[in-house]
């Protein structure tokens, strides 16, 4: 489409001023213990691990590693709190605590945002504008339901399940904690939550917040650690419900362990969403949607639009504009307000992404933006693959990085077939000027959420969850409540 001699030059003499978020207001302790029964306690085995700033490859803090005995303590504390206090509390009182959490989170938003970016590598613009405000919004939303459960399930009585074991991922650490804790508490359950081992800090700051607002001891317990800690939660006999967000691989393992135990569970797993661009779409805005779909949070998003399906007649135009747009994405210091794309969350994740870049190059053509990335830290340039097909691994498998696989289609039916031809079904996107096409597509795509002419929009009132290997159960909205109650 574009003439070869008309390349735009975005390396202008005029540059933006660096604007790093100050960190002098942030307190990170050198060492964090487990939050059990309302206080911070050392792990029995005195084992600790480091949590690292992925943009600097520097250790931020030492964090306790909980073993099965620690998890047992935490579950006992949660059970005790459930039986003695939380289930006895008037629902409106539970709501007050949730409102208090929400308000305090807003008050401390700046510190939470900075720590989220330090520990996880995501740009401050996102942690400040998306992660933290949405986390607070979830607490506000479910606070409102606490004393209205009778209206949520008319004609039926909603009873709490008891102790919920919750295991969350590293891509949206605080937000995932909020998604899990808020509905659980609103419904009268108590919680043992394990944050991801690469991003435990905001959950631990949340524990401090819970203590500061005088949440009754044991209602929320936070145990840190890696896979073994999670396994101890899943296998604990006194837990009534498991809520997990993470990889499909681990989800399968959990489901196998839970089979026959009678425990309730919800799983929010991987995705490989199709973002479908029709020829009649508003192309320039669709390109923005593609960028937002795959490069938001470095592509560490389970509902990322990682498969682009573009109608053949506009494929060259869309890909050309996308490549041009990629040149203007700023990759670098997560704390800088100008940064569009931050650091890859961990060395292990970067290795996994790079492995896929190698695989993708044998399957199709790779294009990366020419942006310069810092020398230390874990970085991946915005990347796209063309010339790949449904049989390519970069099309089939979840990469969880800023890597887009592009395919073309000719007809509506072909687009729909390709969109559904995946073991996943978490999200999808459609871009067209025709309303009828939107409805036809959203009815046909087997995915929990489908965005039309936009992407990655979240709201506490909207249920979120997957079809097929993307999980079971829904979080958010009214649906999110039913995952934490038994109806009589």
């Amino acid at each position: 489409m574009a003439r070869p001699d008309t390349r735009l030059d975005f390396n202008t003499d005029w540059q933006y001023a660096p604007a790093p978020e100050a960190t002098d207001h942030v307190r990170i302790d050198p060492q964090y213990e487990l939050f059990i029964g309302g206080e911070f306690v050392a792990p029995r085995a005195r084992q600790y691990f480091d949590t690292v700033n992925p943009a600097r490859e520097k250790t931020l803090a030492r964090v306790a590693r909980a073993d099965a005995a620690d998890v047992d303590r935490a579950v006992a504390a949660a059970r005790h709190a459930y039986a003695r206090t939380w289930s006895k509390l008037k629902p409106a009182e539970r709501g007050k605590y949730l409102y208090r959490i929400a308000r305090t989170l807003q008050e401390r938003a700046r510190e939470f945002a900075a720590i989220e970016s330090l520990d996880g590598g995501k740009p401050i613009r996102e942690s400040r504008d998306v992660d933290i405000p949405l986390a607070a919004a979830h607490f506000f939303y479910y606070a409102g339901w606490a004393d209205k459960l009778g209206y949520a399930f008319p004609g039926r009585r909603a009873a709490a399940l008891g102790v919920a074991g919750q295991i969350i991922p590293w891509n949206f650490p605080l937000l995932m904690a909020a998604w899990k804790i808020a509905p659980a508490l609103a419904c009268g359950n108590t919680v043992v939550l394990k944050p991801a081992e690469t991003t435990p800090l905001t959950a631990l700051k949340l524990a401090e917040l819970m203590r500061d607002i005088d949440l009754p001891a044991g209602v929320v317990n936070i145990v840190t650690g890696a896979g073994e800690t999670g396994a101890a939660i899943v296998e604990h006999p006194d837990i009534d419900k498991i809520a997990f967000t993470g990889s499909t691989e681990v989800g399968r393992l959990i489901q196998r362990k839970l089979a026959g135990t009678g425990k309730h569970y919800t799983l929010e797993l991987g995705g490989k969403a199709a973002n479908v661009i029709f020829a009649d779409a508003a192309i320039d805005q669709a390109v923005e949607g593609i960028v937002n779909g795959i490069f938001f949070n470095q592509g560490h998003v389970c509902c990322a639009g990682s498969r682009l399906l573009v109608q053949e007649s506009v494929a060259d135009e869309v890909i050309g504009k996308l490549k041009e747009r990629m040149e203007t994405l700023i990759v670098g210091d997560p704390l800088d307000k100008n940064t569009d794309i931050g650091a890859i969350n961990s060395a292990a994740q970067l290795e996994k992404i790079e492995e896929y870049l190698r695989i993708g190059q044998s399957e199709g053509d790779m294009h990366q933006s020419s942006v310069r990335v810092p020398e230390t830290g874990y970085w991946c340039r915005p990347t796209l693959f063309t010339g790949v097909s449904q049989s390519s691994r970069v099309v089939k498998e979840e990469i969880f990085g800023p890597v887009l696989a592009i395919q073309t289609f000719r007809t509506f039916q072909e687009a729909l077939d390709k969109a559904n031809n995946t073991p996943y079904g978490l999200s999808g996107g459609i871009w067209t000027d025709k309303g009828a096409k939107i409805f036809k597509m959203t009815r046909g795509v087997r995915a929990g959420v489908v965005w039309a002419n936009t992407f990655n929009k979240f709201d506490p009132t909207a249920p979120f969850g997957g079809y097929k290997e993307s999980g079971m159960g829904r979080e958010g909205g009214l649906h999110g409540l039913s995952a934490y109650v038994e109806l009589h």
Partner: protein
Amino acid sequence: MNTAVRHLPPQLPALDRVPRVDQVGVEERVARFCTRSIKKDSKVQALKLALSMIDLTTLEGQDTVGKVTQLCQKAMHLHSALPDLPHVAAVCVYPTMVGVARRALRGHDDIKVASVATAFPSGMAPLSIKLEETRLAVEEGADEVDMVISRGAFLQGEYQRVFDEIIAVKEACGQAHLKVILETGELGTLDRVRRASVLAMHAGADFIKTSTGKIQPAATLPVTLVMLQAIRDYYHATGRKVGMKPAGGISKAKLAIQYLVMLRETLGAGWLTPEWFRFGASTLANDLLMQLVKQQTGVYQSGDYFSKD
């Protein structure tokens, strides 16, 4: 080969194939431009760049020889207290004032004289009168002509007429640069803004311009983004650069800098010069100057320290 291309008469492009525009998406993109960090050296550089892109404008029924002469003085002497200031790009006046401006700017050939024409601002006049007015402005010494399109005709779907008018005015301009004012505030939708931009560029516009300044809303960031994207696509398709001029309603330095951010991230280095980007404004210059002084001294001076001509 090139001459053969030049002699082909311009053809009205297929406007139904112009990309559609989604307003919500445009507004989201614009919001992102407004969060870039511009301060210290980066800000000084932006302020000076914005100053150099101004078409200093007076377009009033009450314009007099005295008023236009004062405006030209201002164009030549922005603020003597600050050394190393660029000068504005042009002064913009009515055709009858072109000669006055030309004489007042004698010795300053680097400041252009722009004239509105074609029955500005409504455009409600027969083509023959529009052409006559254009020729008069050019004869008086206008380097640039800012014409208005016939919005009524455009809204009636008479695209060919609008297209032919621009071609005719372009011809009447001779060597003078032609800026085509779309008056986006009267077009109603961003889809129409995009189509009108494509139409104007194919008809030979050297610049496309948002507004006359007489209709609200005048220039906005979303409208300008849509026009910049149209310019970008036209450049990729034809290899010809077209300039952009948002006009009306840009009176603050902060907003002007947001326009520059948008320009930088949409068209890049090639357009970040007064040759390809202009602000149509009357009071913007003083706010830019005030901010420049603030950058130098750390405090804001009273408005009384900046000449109002």
